[in-house]
């Protein structure tokens, strides 16, 4: 019987051959570059401790890539006997991490690591090694059927490239920022202050623009010819796809729906994000770091912005696109999107924790409130019951947004913020910050104690 979902086919093997050839050419150029630099390094004592040209390991690596490419391009082996595939145990190992908790923790950890180790990461050799590892991982993963299905979907192609582009520009930023921070510490002029003569816009800028426009036109035409734009079956209101996904750039917001109700995830938080973005120039009182790349001069603001952009926006889009399958269940990158995959959801509201688990009784009802209310103002019965039932969650929410900023003043950094910003601006700033942290906070509460809602008022569609 023919396997309908083959990990490898002859055309996939040939495609991979071309991919390895491209990798080989990239590294050939790199090897020549390193060779021209005439640098050497000392091999470990175990291997004799002699001086080896830095280009040698790159040359060896390039040759291996070339051989890999040859093997893929000229092989006659039947696809199912071809040995160079992602091994099952590696797939299972990586899929074992398929969990939104781990994914989010990893993306935050990755961002923190990039900031902490920035001085190492900006070294060209290190960055090139990481790029190669990323590309090799992607290429090698393409030997898996399910991975190819999800990465190769036409609408997902821009998202894969976005991952690489964002990584590149983050690297570019850090390489310039680290350079400038070093220059500043040594009292030398900034990178942007050197070679900064006035030049004429014609020809220097207009020709750059012309070349950019031609290059972009070529890219768009080639892209349009090679890859057909997504077009699925004709619309049918009767056939709901599973999963139903919003356009890819809104998938971060759709992911929020797992943790918050639509009125928050779909309306309030997006508005807060946009309002918060617009408020940035009026909150950031730091005059340093205007017109040049730096990390040290504005470590806090850059870290906060990166936290919002990288783990909370880009990584959430990646998660929503590649890892959320049928029924919005979480799937590993090599996992088959099984419609029947079951995930037990047994989430509990805070009020249920308080009244049922802690006080060991039922939730408050109309019978629990004083008689004079129901006798005199019957319209107040429902609100009072709700208030009684949800008082803990309401109190905690008010404390979080109203009192926590005041407590944060005891952190020296925030004390400075308070005095520099004044009360109103400080409250706006801390509230924006706390709302930004509301998503990770709810995630942690969901995973640790299966918390559903902090405030649950389904009667009024008001759940937090």
């Amino acid at each position, binding site marked *: 019987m023919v396997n309908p979902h083959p990990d490898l086919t002859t055309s996939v093997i040939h495609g991979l051959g071309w991919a390895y050839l491209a990798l080989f050419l990239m590294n050939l150029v790199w090897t020549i570059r390193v060779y021209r630099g005439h640098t050497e390094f000392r091999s470990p004592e175990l291997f004799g401790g002699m001086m080896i040209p830095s280009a040698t390991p790159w040359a060896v690596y390039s040759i291996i890539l070339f051989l890999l490419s040859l093997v893929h391009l000229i092989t006659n082996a039947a696809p199912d006997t071809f040995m160079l595939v992602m091994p099952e145990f590696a797939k299972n190992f990586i899929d074992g991490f398929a969990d939104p908790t781990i994914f989010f923790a990893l993306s935050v950890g990755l961002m923190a690591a990039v900031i902490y180790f920035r001085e190492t990461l900006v070294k060209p050799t290190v960055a090139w090694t990481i790029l190669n590892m990323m590309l090799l991982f992607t290429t090698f993963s393409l030997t898996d059927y399910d991975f190819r299905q999800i990465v190769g979907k036409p609408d997902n192609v*821009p998202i894969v490239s976005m991952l690489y*582009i*964002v990584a590149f*520009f983050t690297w570019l930023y850090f390489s*310039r*920022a680290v350079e400038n921070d070093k220059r500043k510490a040594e009292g030398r002029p900034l990178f*942007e*202050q050197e*070679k*900064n003569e*006035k*030049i*004429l*816009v*014609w020809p220097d800028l*207009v020709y750059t*623009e012309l070349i*950019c426009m031609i290059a*972009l036109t070529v890219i*768009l*035409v080639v*892209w*349009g010819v090679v890859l*057909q*734009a*997504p*077009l*699925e*079956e*004709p*619309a049918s*209101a009767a*056939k709901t796809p599973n999963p139903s996904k919003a*356009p890819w*750039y*809104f998938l971060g917001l759709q992911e929020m729906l797992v943790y918050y*109700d*639509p*009125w928050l*995830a*779909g*309306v*309030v938080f997006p508005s807060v994000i*946009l309002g918060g*973005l*617009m408020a*940035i*120039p*009026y909150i*950031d009182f730091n*005059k340093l*770091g*205007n*017109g*040049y*790349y730096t990390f040290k001069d504005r470590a806090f603001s850059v870290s906060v*912005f990166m936290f919002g952009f990288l783990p909370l926006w880009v990584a959430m889009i990646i998660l929503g696109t590649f890892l959320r399958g049928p029924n919005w269940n979480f799937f590993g990158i090599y996992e088959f999107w099984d419609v029947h995959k079951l995930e037990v959801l047994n989430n509990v509201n805070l009020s249920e924790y308080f009244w049922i688990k802690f006080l060991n009784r039922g939730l408050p009802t109309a019978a629990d409130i004083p008689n004079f209310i129901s006798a005199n103002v019957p319209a107040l019965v429902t609100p009072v019951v709700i208030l009684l039932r949800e008082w803990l969650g309401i109190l905690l929410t008010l404390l979080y947004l109203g009192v926590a900023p005041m407590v944060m003043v005891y952190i020296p950094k925030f004390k400075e913020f308070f005095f520099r910003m004044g009360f109103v601006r400080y409250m706006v700033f801390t509230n924006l910050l706390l709302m930004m942290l509301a998503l990770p906070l709810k995630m942690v509460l969901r995973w640790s104690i299966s918390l559903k809602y902090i405030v649950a008022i389904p009667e*009024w*569609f*008001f759940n937090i």
Partner: protein
Amino acid sequence: MSVGEYIRDSQLWKSVFRHPAPYDRRNRVVVMLTNFFLHLHPVSIKQQGIALSYTWCMGGVTFFLFLVETLTGVLLMFYYRPTLEWAYNDILALRDVTTLGIMREIHRWGAHAMVITVWLHMYRVFLTGSYKPPREFNWVIGVLLLVLTLLLSFTGYLLPWDQLAIWAITVGSNMARATPFLGYEGPGAQLLNIGGYDLITNASDARFLLLGSRFVGEATLNRFYILHCVAIPLVVALLIAIHFWRVRKDGGISQPL
């Protein structure tokens, strides 16, 4: 006299370009001042202001993509009919049989690219601190342009009228149902009633305003088509003009002090 000189010496040429070719310094200045398209630029600029490693060129790329989208979009409007009967068939024909149907592929991929380049432009502007005084308000306009870019992409998403389109728009617009006070499943909507009659129902709430209907249907297609082709692009064009104008008025691209 060579042909080139003959042409440049003619009355016709001189009526269009009022100065000699920009070969010397004087005429390179004059060309910037007398050409309508070039006068967006200053005459001279600091070297770092055009260094790709500083600017990433993402704002410029976004603007160029906006122009590409406008051009391909206008061409597509000659062909595509926003009705339930024809929308999908027209897109299918653009893909399979129509001459220059590649305009649709370019339009679609350009739209994806534009969303990404807007984000990268914003990322760069933040990382160089370019929103700091005196450029605060231009950042605000930039955020508005970000919203409008996303809305342009969102409204365009529906037009092919395939499964991807209607369900993505259904999922996206379902959020409007939960708008506080203005969505019929939003908190506070029950409060808006007069004598027991709800003001906010599924036929009068924010989602209905967006869709022109209780579900994604022909009215929605028409509404999104107008928004996508006329309404939003007009606002975007205006804001882009202000955005560029302010860049110049605020002293050009940000520089170290």
